[in-house]
């Protein structure tokens, strides 16, 4: 009906694909990821654009002007771009490759991981927290969901802000907004009070065996003012009412010895995961759309050996070995499918069979340090980052696929010379005095023989004298 009133141009433009591109999201707040301007953001904030092959060959992406082949079709076989500006003052379309996020998504989907709700993985106890899918009906709720009425239902979003994560200025602005809405809030509070009062009356009538509809709950202004006054005098009672009225996410639990005798008590958290209660509600849906499978109960079939308990291990690149980093002991960091992951097993003190490069940096490994891991759990934290945890792949997981961690050649091997039947040992440290550091040529020089007794000593002495003169 609204579209009928629009002009045909407006109607078409509103439906066009270019205008349907979603708005840019706010970038991640923390500054650690902004240290580098070229670093990949923890989560995408712009839509990725692809184009069919026939149009790609002409550079046609449906944008203001064709994109240059040099940075699209000549750079990649499946270019994906993200758009910064359709046109700028310099007459260029500002775009960059979006392969960093799209390829990471593809790699993640190849791992066949379901998304879980975040939970602290404690590596010391080698007990993996239970997988809990964010798609369960009692957890997958927003503030408007129907399922929120069910007893024990949790939600992953509140309408109110997360007070613990607000700055001073943000909190002041929020206070001002709440003060402006005071009449509506009081009206809402009164409705809640009426509902509470009627429930009490019904309960009383039920207990006394009277007619339930006989006494309708009526609240006078005086009664309501008394109710407000009692709430104000009792912080323990006021706290839950305020959180409910403003639909705020409960703050994390504070140890009771740290706070005074009287404090505004907060109700138990309604967020779907304890991690979200600690670090704030998630920015996205807790699955972030990365995977829609609910469980990890898949059986991976091997063509030759049949069903396997573990899926095919994934190769992880060692980004940072274990050790001191910025003044504190840190676990090893590994990159699994484009996602940085802390190595779990690196906490145990006795390490045997650790892949090379994990405990200290090793430049001798060809292609850099890598090892095989089995991803076990993936979740989205409240900043929208992927939290992946993994174990080192066990020998049984690796065996069917014939894959092995890199083995350094052992330093304890006995050299060929020692095993040779001849008792002669070449003198490697001997270098004549005036001899240049590079060998001129081995052809016209007499081949130096290994030292053997006094004759050889004399011969080498002669050689030295000859070369000096």
């Amino acid at each position, binding site marked *: 009906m609204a579209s009928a009133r629009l002009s045909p141009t407006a109607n078409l433009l509103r439906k066009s694909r270019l205008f349907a591109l979603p708005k840019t999201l706010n970038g991640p707040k923390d500054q650690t990821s902004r240290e580098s301007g070229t670093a990949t953001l923890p989560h995408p904030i712009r839509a990725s654009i692809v184009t069919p092959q026939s149009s790609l060959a002409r550079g046609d992406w449906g944008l203001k002007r*064709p994109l240059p082949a040099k940075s699209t079709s000549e750079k990649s076989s499946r270019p994906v771009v993200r758009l910064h500006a359709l*046109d700028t003052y310099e007459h260029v379309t500002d775009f960059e490759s979006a392969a960093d996020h799209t390829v990471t998504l593809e790699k993640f989907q190849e791992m066949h991981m379901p998304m879980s709700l975040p939970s602290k993985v404690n590596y010391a106890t080698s007990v993996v927290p239970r997988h809990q899918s964010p798609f369960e009906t009692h957890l997958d709720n927003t503030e408007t969901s129907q399922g929120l009425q069910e007893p024990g239902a949790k939600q992953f979003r509140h309408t109110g802000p997360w007070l613990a994560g607000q700055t001073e200025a943000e909190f002041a602005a929020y206070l001002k907004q709440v003060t402006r809405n005071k009449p509506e809030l009081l009206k809402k509070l009164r409705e809640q009070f009426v509902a509470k009062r009627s429930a009490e009356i019904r309960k009383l009538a039920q207990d006394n065996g009277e007619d339930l509809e006989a006494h309708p709950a009526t609240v006078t202004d005086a009664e309501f003012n008394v109710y407000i006054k009692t709430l104000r005098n009792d912080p323990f009672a006021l706290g839950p009412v305020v959180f409910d009225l403003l639909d705020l996410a409960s703050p994390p639990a504070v140890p009771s010895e740290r706070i005074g005798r009287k404090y505004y008590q907060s109700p138990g958290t309604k967020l779907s995961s304890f991690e979200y209660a600690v670090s704030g509600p998630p920015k996205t849906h807790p699955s972030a759309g990365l995977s829609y499978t609910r469980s990890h109960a898949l059986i991976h079939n091997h063509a030759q050996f049949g069903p396997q308990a573990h899926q095919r291990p994934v190769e992880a690149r060692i980004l940072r070995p274990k050790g001191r980093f910025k003044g504190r002991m840190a676990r090893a960091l590994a990159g699994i499918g484009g996602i940085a992951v802390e190595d779990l097993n690196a906490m145990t003190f006795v390490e045997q069979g650790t892949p090379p490069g994990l405990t200290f940096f090793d430049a001798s490994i060809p292609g850099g340090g890598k090892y095989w891991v089995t991803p076990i759990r993936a979740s989205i934290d409240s900043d929208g980052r992927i939290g992946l945890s993994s174990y080192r792949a066990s020998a049984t997981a690796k065996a069917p696929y014939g894959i092995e961690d890199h083995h350094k050649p052992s330093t304890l091997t006995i050299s060929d010379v020692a095993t040779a039947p001849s008792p002669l040992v070449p003198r490697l440290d001997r270098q004549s005095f005036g001899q240049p550091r590079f060998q001129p040529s081995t052809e016209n020089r007499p081949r130096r023989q290994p030292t053997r007794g006094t004759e050889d000593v004399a011969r080498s002495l002669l050689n030295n004298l000859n070369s000096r003169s």
Partner: protein
Amino acid sequence: MNLPARQHLQFSIPKMIIRKLCMRQSRQLLALSRRAPVSSRFQSTLPETPVETLQTSIRDEIPRPENPLFEMVQAQHEASTPVQQEFTSDEPQRSNFKKLGTTVKSSYDPEDVIRNPPKPSQISLEMLLAAGTHLGHSTSRWNPQNSRYIFGIREGVHIISLDVTAAHLRRAAKVVEEVAARGGLILFAGTRKGQKRAVVKAASLAKGYHIFERWIPGSLTNGEQILGHCETKVVNALDEELPNFKSDLADRPSLKPDLVICLNPLENVVLLHECGLNNVPTIGVIDTDADPTRVTYPIPSNDDSLRATCLIAGILGRAGEAGQARRLKMAQEGRTSYTPITAQELRLDPFTGMVPGGEGQKK
């Protein structure tokens, strides 16, 4: 005139092939009775379908038993190996199933806009939207004279109104068609990279001329020097060349176009300026940063997208094609929509208006 010649051709080709067949293979075929190599492509044709092929014509011409080629011809119809037999037995079923399934009726082919450009009557807002003609330049780049073509601002760029573009494009197409119908010379100029094919195609449709490289400054204002050596010809109303008048063209000034279509006016300011000096009407694709007063008939549109400019060039080319067709049809009926020049006038000196070499010349 044409028809008999074509029929003759149709008859002559099979004969020639038969002759070649006999020349090449008859001697060997007679010597050894081996089966001729059968190309599998012949097998794929339906035996039921009465197609006039080479084999059937041979069979009809030559009586069966005496023919040494009979065996070879017959071999192509018999399935010899089990695989071939199976293939031919499945053929009816395969042809039955061919009718099943879906066919994709309209799919987007980017080449279509150059190979088969749409007619001016087919202009639709959807077509223009798909080509991206609505995307203007950054708002900081705008020319305020274009404000009447602009629909609004989105994501920092001006959006050109699609229906304004369509209206101006239709008007420009009409201009091109009428100029072509009156026998005018039309010049298509698109000097950006990638516009070459569209410009050439449009010019060939409209029987006009094209520039896809640099416009040499002065080609209009100083045409004697720059284009003086170029060839000109005299044609009649049916576009047939009249070589008898060749000598009369010697003293004539270089030709000037009657309409110039410019796909990128920003780079061709000199061309448009010269057109203005010489009273040549111009049609130009005007983006939001271009000056619309540079051209006579602006088409407000995105001039950076190749798809958009190819579409506009194609539509104008089609319009020219329609105008030329109309003109030639009228000429065949003996009418013209312009006052034709007489042979007498053509022979006169262009500067003096006198008969060359006559008494007038001496004065």
